[in-house]
């Protein structure tokens, strides 16, 4: 009988890892973000903005909050819309559809630095042909200013007037006039209907896309029970700096938007792309207008997993991933590592990350589970490496994901540090 120490067990596991090619990729899932091949020429990508040049690795015990499911794709609802106008047009009067009582109306200069002082004395508010007094003392609406809203943390321009319409009745049309602003002054009117049963919805299956990929979204008007296509839908994908926009097409049933992420991404600064959708629909005599936007992460194929991976247990569990790089930058691997407990059940072990500046060509990124973390967990092979993600840190884009990931050391199930085995 030979009794093995923790160290010898680890060496045994290490041997098993390196011996029979036990690192096995699981099949990619339909939801995985994948780059099958890099472009033949250097992809048009924004410059990498990374500041760190040192390679950094880090791992910590993995716990997952299971109080709710993992986030699915982005989804937004809206009971509001905006109208761009000018000083001249708002003096003539704007006709704004309403679908409920109690709407909040805000009038602002379009840009913060206008120096404009909106004068409440020039305001006229008319609902379905009946004028509302605009002085609170007269039983009319109560006006608040930009400074009032800023005091609540709402960073509207100082040049703002806002008020709430009466909470009674079923108004359908607001006629809004404001005199006194310069004729060519860009203005915006924001209408929010918190009590309306009608809201717009916009959602996507994924948060992230790559250049050249198809993009698909669901869009609708809804009252919670019914979902219907708007009569008019306009939608665009907008770059982070708002300097470029690409149209999205409405599907034949009016409930979907499709488009293609541009192949060549502009150098548009940090931040997310946005889908903007403008909906207008009618239910009976109610005209419903809703504006929606959804943030998406979009990146260029600057690197990919080359599907090589190896593992060793020299100093804890070390996993090397092959990364093929098209454009230099700082790239990050992250992964969840699960291990096997004494009962043979997989348990979360560690969250691990690694990042380094990589040059074009074949590279490796190594993630690790340090030996102290591994020992403390009491978990052993087989390990599963899940939710593997390759990111371009310097351009803040998600490049590849493998939800199922890979399996390490499956033939040595049950070995754990400290266990005694007889040979």
């Amino acid at each position, binding site marked *: 009988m030979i009794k093995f120490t923790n160290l010898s067990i680890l060496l045994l596991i290490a041997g098993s890892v390196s011996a029979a090619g036990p690192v096995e990729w699981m099949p990619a899932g339909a939801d995985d973000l994948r780059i099958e091949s890099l472009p033949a020429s250097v992809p048009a990508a924004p410059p990498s903005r990374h*500041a760190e040049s040192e390679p950094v690795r880090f791992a*910590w015990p993995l716990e997952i*909050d299971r109080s709710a499911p993992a986030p699915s794709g982005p989804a937004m609802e809206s009971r509001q819309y905006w109208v761009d106008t000018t000083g001249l047009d708002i003096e003539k009067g704007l006709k704004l559809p309403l679908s409920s009582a*109690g709407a909040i109306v805000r009038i602002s200069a379009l840009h913060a630095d206008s120096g404009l002082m909106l004068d409440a004395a020039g305001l006229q508010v008319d609902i379905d042909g009946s004028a509302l007094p605009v002085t609170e003392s007269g039983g009319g609406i*109560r006006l608040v200013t930009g400074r009032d809203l800023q005091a609540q943390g*709402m960073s509207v321009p100082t040049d703002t007037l806002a008020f709430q319409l009466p909470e009674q009745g079923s108004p359908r049309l607001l006629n809004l006039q404001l005199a006194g602003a310069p004729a060519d002054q860009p203005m*915006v009117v924001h209408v*929010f209907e918190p009590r309306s049963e009608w809201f717009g919805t916009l959602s996507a299956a994924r948060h992230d896309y790559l250049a050249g990929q198809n993009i698909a979204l669901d869009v609708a008007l809804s009252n919670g029970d019914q979902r219907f296509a708007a009569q008019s839908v306009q939608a665009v994908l907008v770059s982070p700096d708002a300097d470029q926009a690409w149209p999205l097409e409405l599907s034949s049933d009016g409930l979907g938007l499709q488009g293609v992420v541009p192949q060549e991404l502009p150098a548009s600064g940090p931040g997310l792309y946005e889908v903007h959708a403008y909906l207008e629909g009618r239910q009976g005599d109610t005209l419903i207008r809703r504006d929606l936007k959804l943030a*998406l992460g979009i990146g260029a194929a600057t690197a990919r997993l080359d599907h090589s991976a190896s593992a060793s247990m020299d100093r804890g569990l070390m996993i090397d991933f092959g990364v093929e790089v098209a454009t230099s930058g700082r790239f990050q691997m992250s992964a969840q590592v699960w291990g096997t407990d004494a009962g043979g059940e997989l348990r979360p072990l560690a*969250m691990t990350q690694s990042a380094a500046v990589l040059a074009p060509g074949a590279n490796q990124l190594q993630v690790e589970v340090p030996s102290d973390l591994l020992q403390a967990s009491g978990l052993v092979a087989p390990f599963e490496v899940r939710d593997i993600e390759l990111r371009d840190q310097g351009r803040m884009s998600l490049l590849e994901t493998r939800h199922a990931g890979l399996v390490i050391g499956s033939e040595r199930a049950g070995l754990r540090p400290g266990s005694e085995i007889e040979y």
Partner: protein
Amino acid sequence: MSRFIRTGIALLALLTFGSVWSATGVAFVHGTGKQTDALNDYWTSSMVNSVRQGLPNSANYIVINCDFEQYMWDSQAAGCLAGQLYNFINSRGISDLVVLTHSNGGNVMRWILSNPTWDSRYPTIINNTRWVNALAPSSLGTPLADAVMQGNIFEASLGWLLGYQNDAVRMQQVSWMQNYNANWLYGTAGRPSLPTGFWNVVGTDVVSGFWSSNAYCGGYQYQVGLEITQNWLDSCSDGFLNCSSQNGAGSLWFYDHWRTSSGRKLSHHQSRRNCFNLDVILRNDL
């Protein structure tokens, strides 16, 4: 593991190994805004001085001053925060750091905790942080940020988007935080946990009536705009953030009325001030 158990373990370890441990410290991390004197302009010295009395060495504190009008990852935001925390840890030998964040400061700190490989200073900060006490963090964003982004892209030039909003407000739009919480930040439901505890203090209401003494703590705020802004928020909010956002990442420490004196509610403004015994609660946690 509950906060109570963790506290017990920390206390036991402190009693056992206190002589060989180095110092406990506390850092105050402000919210959105470009601060140059956050001690006076954001927290007030009475709040800071009260909290730091809970330290074995009350000099081991730092009040962060950074530009949190930038995106959370920006060198002037998380980079600045990391620099000040890193220098504080190294210069004062801090190995047991409690970080107090308010509002968007929670997002900037969560960026550091979620992205340890972004910056070689981050691991040192994480390894020496006991936990984060996040006062009213905007973890899921706020619909008020969505409401102030303005203009219709079909009717105006595309330049409107950057007309006046700072990047921090833009980032705290709800759908932007959905993206970052799904991608770059940990600690939300269904996602891996953060490497350190992130404990939320949730403000649940605003008392604004001039007749109520509650409304005057932290300085009376003219609340005339509140009746407008509340329309974007849930019935449970601190006047700026829904409770769901404040407790959207990490773990709940307490809803304000669970622990404050006489069960009083903390508005967003009051959760960074020594109102209703909040300073003592935070002091006793050090």
